[in-house]
Each structure stands twice: as C-alpha cells, then as structure tokens.
C-alpha cells in the first residue's frame, strides 16, 4: 500500500475494488457525487413525467396510481437520496481540507455511512420492478399509508430506515471530525462558514434522524408484524406519525439548506474578492436557525387540529426563523457590495440564489400565519413555496459548487461557457415552473392531483409550468454534458484555480494527494490561505510540524458487507406479511451477516499504516514534477 503504487495506473478491477473498500474521504466524496447525481436524474425524470401529465387538462399520459408513485418517489428521492448525498459529497471533499485534516475522525464509519445510504436507496428503487413503488406521498401519513396495498410503503419504510442509519453515522462522523481534527490554530471562530454549517447541519442530523427511525420502525411493525401504533380501532393514534415525521421533517429542510448557505458563503467572498461580511453574525445565525428549526415542526400540522394555542406558538416560532435567515441574506449582499466582482458560473448561481431564496422565505412566512395556512394548505402554493426554497436554495448551491469545487475534486475544470448556458436555461425554467404555481394554488388547485378539469382558469398556467420544467430538464442535461466533457479535458495541476481562494482547501495543489497535507498546516488567522498569499508565502501555508511519517487508515470491505447484510434482511421483513416461509430465515441470515461483519471488525486490530518520508517525497514528485508541492 505504498503511495507510489497508488499513483500507478490501475486495471479496471483494481479500481472498482479500490472504490468498494476505500475509506478516503475524497474518494467517498466521488461516490456520493455519482450516487447523488444518479438519483437526482431519476427523481428529475419522475418530475418531468408528472409535469407532462399535468400539461393539459384531463390528460391520461400516466395513470392515477402511477402518478401517486411518481410524486412519492420524486419527493422522497430528491430529499433523502439526491440532495443529502450531493451535499455530503461536498462536505466529504472539502471539510477535512478546510480544517487542515488528513482524513475524517472515523474513516471506516464514513465508508459505512455511504454504503448504508446507497443500498437503502437501491432497495427503495427496486420497488419499481417488484410490484409498485410507495404511493402515500413523501410524508407517508399513517392514516393513508397503513392501508396502501402491495409492498410500496414497505419499501419506503425499510429503504429509508437503512439509508437513514447511514446518514446518522455520517453526521456523527462530521461532528467529531470538526471538533477534534482541526489543525493547530484553526479555532472555532476561524473555521470557514461551510465547515460551520456542516457542523450545525450534522448536529441537526444527530437530533432529527432518531425520531424518523422511531417513526419508520413503528410503521414497519404496524404493517409487517401486526403492531397497533396507528390503528385507532386497537387504541392507536395516527397523529403520532405526524409528530414524529415532522420533528424529523422540518429540521431536514435545515439539514439541507444550511450546507447550501455555507457553500454560498464560500463562493461569494471568493468572487466578490472581499472578506465575508459579518462572519460572527453568520455563525450566530447558523446556530440560531439550527435551534429554531426544532421548535417549529407543528406548523406542518396547523390543520390537524392541535388547537389555537399550539398553532399560535408554532406560528410565532416559525416567523422568528426569518430573522436569522434575513441576517444571512443581508450579510451576503453586503459582502458583494463594493466588491470587485467576477461573474463566473458559481457566482451566477449565488446571484440567482439570493432573490429566489428570499421569495421562498417570504412565502414561508405567509404560511406561518396559521389562519392563512388553512387557505393555502395542500394547494399548489405549498408546492411553489418549497420548490423555491429547495431548488432556489439547495439545488443552485449544489450546481454552483459543482463548478466551484470541480478543480479540487477532480483536477479538471467545468466549461464556463456551457455553464452559463446551463445556468440561464435552468434558472429561467425554474422560475417559469414554480412562480406561476403560487397563483395556481391561490386559485384553488390542490397539490398531488393527477389531473384536473378544463376551463377552471388553470389550463394555461399548468401548460407554462410544464414548459418551465422541460427547460429545467434541458439545463440538467447540459450540466451532465459538461461533466462528461470535463473528463476528456486536460488536467489542471494547479493551485488556487479561481485565483482568489481564501480558505485552506485552495492552498493545496491539485490533484490532492491521498494524505491531503504532507505537513499539518498552522492556521494563523481567518481566511488562512488569503493571509499567507498576501504575506508573499509561495507555498500557501505555514507548517505546524516538520516533514515526517504520516499515519493513514487501512481500506476495508467490511462496511459494504455490513450494509449488504441489512439489505438482505430488509427483503425478509418485506415479505413477512405475505406469510412466506422464508421471511424469518432471510431476516436472520441478513442480520447474521451484519453482526458477523461487525464482530470481525471488532476482533481484528486495525492500526492503519505509515507513509514514510521518502514515499511522500516520491508521491509529490510524481504528482507535481521536480520540487514537489512548491
């Protein structure tokens, strides 16, 4: 496992094996990126099918039942299996570099988190080929989903249970990494905003995913093992599901949007060529949003009938979130203000993000008004609102960061020209799709309907909305084309691709070696790379230690085996209600594989390996030529 061997050209099988066993945060980032993009494409395709169905009234392009499956899988996939892994990809690739670490705190768990997520996602998607996908909406309210025929809901419950465990593990890993692995001098108040938002977002994962785990477990035993949590004739109560789901579900929105805020807080200062305005208030606002995010779940349940007192409290708490979010928006604007702005593709996404996200936030405050929410509830206004937040906030951040971080992640650049085309087509398509849905909602069009009658004044608006969705589809195809073109393009082999990088990740020459920093950097202030550059430091960083042996973790196949065991057990549980004889044995075999793999992991010492100084120098010379990383 010497570094020279790593740098050598490998065969296809060896490369696959390398990715199956890797514990390197940069390779796991690539896996997250590929998986996330795949599921993003699938869920986007589902959205297009829905918009084609709704293009004209009384359409029969898809059946009502299949439409329910499409809308459920679109929402579930986009939130759990596309946005989350894509943000995890950037967190994995960038956070350890930003804090000057060689890897994450638990490289093994990092790999386990990915494989659990991926196999859970795969399990959920197998439902399309095995008797029908879940069809009770991404919220899967118990009063509806408990009685959904077939195995769709079972796929939802088991798939999300497995992938949720993976997300929770990754969240714990990021928290510990950011607490313990920071380089000397990287105090909390010198951490880049993306690291801060990753920390807070991981903390939200820590507290939000267990209620989902419990909710899914209750649903699982109710549907598959005859329990009675949601069955009112046996004393159960379906409102429990609503509470558990939204105690998870509302923070989930912040889990996704906080890293997106962090990404923009990295992009904007680089291209405004100004220090981030109001750094400490940004940190404070991030923490406050995270805290308030847990205090507002019942605003999804205003019409459930919790009573005016509960509604009033949750309404006020919800409106309060607008304050820290507003602080952030003003800070971004004031960072741009007076800057020497370079309008690159990432900056275009950032500039598009601010007004789009503000629009989504304003409609959010409208819905926080409980009496008005009785009118807006379950209408297309809600659909418009959350797509403004999610597409306007999270997807723009992800697309912008594709361009922004591509040089660090792949040592290649995405085309700026094609990127600008992508941005404008996607951005115009996005507003065309969703702006008009506000009015459809106000006119009374309910969400989640598979068709509608003509001549209610909805025909034209729905048609426009569908055209916009097709434009967004074209935009995504252009982005993917850009990605494939970059594979053929020339390697960059440079440092600080954008020329104005500020934080530590830009101080590294690409391609980044597997041990990241050959010597741990010493952080002497906020924006450490900017600081060093302006003091004329050619190497980009001051080192905290002399060149010495580097300790690195070993690769392992065990995370994949653990995840496969869970995957197998899920099939046993799925078919349990059918009364097949093999269901319990399959559960036992699956869990047995998992437990055996875990015990194997426990019994073996895994001490990692050392990269010696001569190997480091050889790697540096191989990557950057004579003189290494100078």
């Amino acid at each position, binding site marked *: 496992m010497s570094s020279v061997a790593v740098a050598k050209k490998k065969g296809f099988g060896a490369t696959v094996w390398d990715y199956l066993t890797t514990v390197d945060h940069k390779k796991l980032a690539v896996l997250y990126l590929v998986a996330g993009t795949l599921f993003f494409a699938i869920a986007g395709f589902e959205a297009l099918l829905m918009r084609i169905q709704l293009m004209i009234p009384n359409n029969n392009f898809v059946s009502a039942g299949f439409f329910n499956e499409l809308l459920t899988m679109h929402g579930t996939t986009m939130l759990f299996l596309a946005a989350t892994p894509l943000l995890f990809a950037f967190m994995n690739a960038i956070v350890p570099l930003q804090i000057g670490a060689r890897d994450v705190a638990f490289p093994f768990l990092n790999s386990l988190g990915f494989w659990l997520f991926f196999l859970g996602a795969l399990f959920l998607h197998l439902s399309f080929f095995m008797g029908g996908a879940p069809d009770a909406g991404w919220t899967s309210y118990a009063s509806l989903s408990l009685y959904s025929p077939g195995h769709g809901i079972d796929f939802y419950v088991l798939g999300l249970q497995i992938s949720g465990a993976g997300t929770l593990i990754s969240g714990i890993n990021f*928290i510990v990494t950011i607490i313990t692995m920071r380089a000397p001098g990287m105090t909390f108040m010198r951490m880049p905003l993306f690291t801060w938002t990753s920390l807070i977002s991981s903390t939200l994962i820590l507290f939000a995913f*267990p209620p989902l785990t419990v909710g899914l477990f209750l649903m699982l035993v109710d549907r598959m093992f005859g329990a009675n*949590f949601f069955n009112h004739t*046996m*004393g159960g*109560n379906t409102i429990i599901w609503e509470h*558990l789901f939204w105690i998870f579900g509302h923070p989930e929105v912040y889990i996704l949007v906080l890293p997106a805020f962090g990404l923009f807080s990295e992009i904007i200062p680089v291209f405004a060529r100004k220090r981030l305005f109001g750094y400490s208030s940004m940190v404070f606002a991030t923490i406050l949003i995270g805290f308030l995010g847990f205090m507002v779940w019942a605003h999804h349940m205003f019409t459930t009938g919790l009573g005016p007192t509960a509604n009033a409290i949750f309404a006020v708490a919800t409106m309060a979130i607008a304050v820290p979010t507003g602080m952030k928006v003003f800070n971004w604007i004031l960072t741009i203000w007076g800057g020497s702005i370079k309008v690159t593709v990432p900056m275009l996404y950032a500039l598009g993000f601010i007004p789009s996200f503000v629009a989504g936030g304003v409609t959010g405050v409208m819905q926080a008004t409980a009496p008005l929410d009785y009118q807006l509830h379950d209408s297309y206004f809600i659909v418009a609102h959350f797509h403004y937040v999610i597409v306007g906030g999270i997807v723009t951040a992800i697309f912008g960061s594709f361009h922004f971080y591509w040089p660090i992640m792949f040592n290649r650049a995405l085309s700026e020209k094609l990127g600008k085309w992508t941005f404008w087509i996607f951005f115009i398509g996005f507003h065309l799709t969703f702006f008009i849905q506000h009015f459809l909602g106000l006119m009374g069009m309910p969400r989640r309907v598979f068709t509608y009658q003509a001549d209610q004044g909805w025909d034209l608006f729905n048609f426009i909305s569908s055209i916009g969705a097709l434009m967004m589809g074209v935009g995504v195809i252009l982005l993917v084309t850009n990605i494939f073109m970059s594979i053929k393009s020339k390697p960059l082999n440079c440092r600080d691709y954008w020329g104005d990088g500020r934080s530590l990740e830009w101080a590294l020459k690409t391609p980044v070696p597997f041990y990241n920093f050959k010597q741990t950097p010493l952080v002497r202030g906020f924006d450490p790379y900017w600081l060093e550059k302006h003091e004329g430091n050619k190497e980009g960083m001051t080192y905290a230690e002399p060149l010495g042996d580097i300790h690195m973790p070993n690769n392992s196949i065990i995370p994949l085996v653990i995840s496969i065991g869970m995957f197998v057990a899920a099939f046993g549980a799925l078919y349990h209600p059918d009364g097949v004889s093999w269901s319990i044995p399959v559960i036992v075999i699956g869990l047995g594989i998992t437990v055996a793999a875990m015990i194997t992991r426990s019994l073996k010492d895994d*001490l990692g390996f050392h990269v010696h100084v001569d190997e480091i120098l050889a790697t540096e010379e191989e990557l950057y030529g004579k003189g290494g990383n100078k």
Partner: protein
Amino acid sequence: MEETKFTPQTWPDHPEQATMEGKNKFVGIWIFICSDIVLFASVFATYLSLKDKGPAGMEFSAAELYELPLAFVMTMLLLTSSLTSVFAMYHMKNYNFKGVQTWMIITVLLGLGFLGLEIYEFYHYVHIGFGYTQSAFSSAFFTLVGTHGLHVVIGLVWITCLIVRNARRGLNLYNAPKYYAASIYWHFIDVVWVFIFTVVYLMGVLG
C-alpha cells in the same frame, strides 16, 4: 506506539484520550449517546401517549399488569453492573488489566441476569395474553422496554467481544478507549433504565 510496554508509572492519566483515535472515540461515543437520547425520547413519548389505550373491553391496564418486586430486582442488577463497570475503569486507569477483565466479566454476568429477568417478564406477559399485537398499549410497552433490552444485548455482545479479543493482547492505548466507550455506553443504558423504571413501572402502578 502500540509496541510501547507500559508500567503503572508510565501509563498516562487518561489512557482513553492519549491518542488521536482515542480522543475521537471519546467524543464520538458521547455524540452518539446524544442521538440515542432523542431515540429513547421518541419511544417514551409514544408509550406515554398510548398507555392504557386499546380496543374496547381491553383486559390489561398498567396498574394491574406490572409487578414492582421483579422490576426492582432488575433495577438493582443493572445499577450494580454500572458500578462494576466503574471499578473496571478504575483499574484501567491504574494499568491493572486483570482488574479490568474481572470487573468487566462481572458486569456482563449482572447484565445477563437483568436480561434473563426481562425475558422472563416478557414471556410471562405473553403467556397471560398480553401479546405484542394485543393493543396499542402492548405494542408501545414492548417497543419501549424491548428497545432498551436490545441496547442491553448490544452492550453485552460489545463488552464480551472486548473481553475476548483483548484477553491475549493485554491493555494498551489502542484498546483502552474501546473499554472506555463501552463503559460510557453501559452507563447510558443504565440511566435509560432508571427512566423506564420510573415512567413505566412506578407511574404505571400508580395508575
């Protein structure tokens, strides 16, 4: 690092945090426990909202079902096992590996005693007709106490693995954090049981 032979004099004051990996495990187990607290909070909330709820004419209620003497013995077994795991950690800090192993084995035995009584209790309830599918109340009871029981099983397997794997290796800075994390986890299970004893059994008997 791993080859270093320690004596009680050279053994660090905080062996569980003496290495980077150890420090990560130390922070990691606490962070994990934070999320496990929320997990139990959710199950507790579900139990409280479904307590004594069932179909019309349900024959079991919490006030009649629970037997405090049994729950008290279980509580004592688990609390004592927490104490013995503290003894093990005390010996770990003094580099007395034999003491660590002995007290950990006693911890496991006490945990097994607890588990045996819990299995007996479940068996007894099912036997008298209070099965998992009988009512919302029964589902909630078995899920709450069973989730705790599952945590006990995991803890026992974990500590047993540690005792077995390290029997020949002896104490070093690689496995000291592992023992420490397992003992923190074991204390956490114990604290959760204190809440179960209070919320389920004591408040249940009160009606």
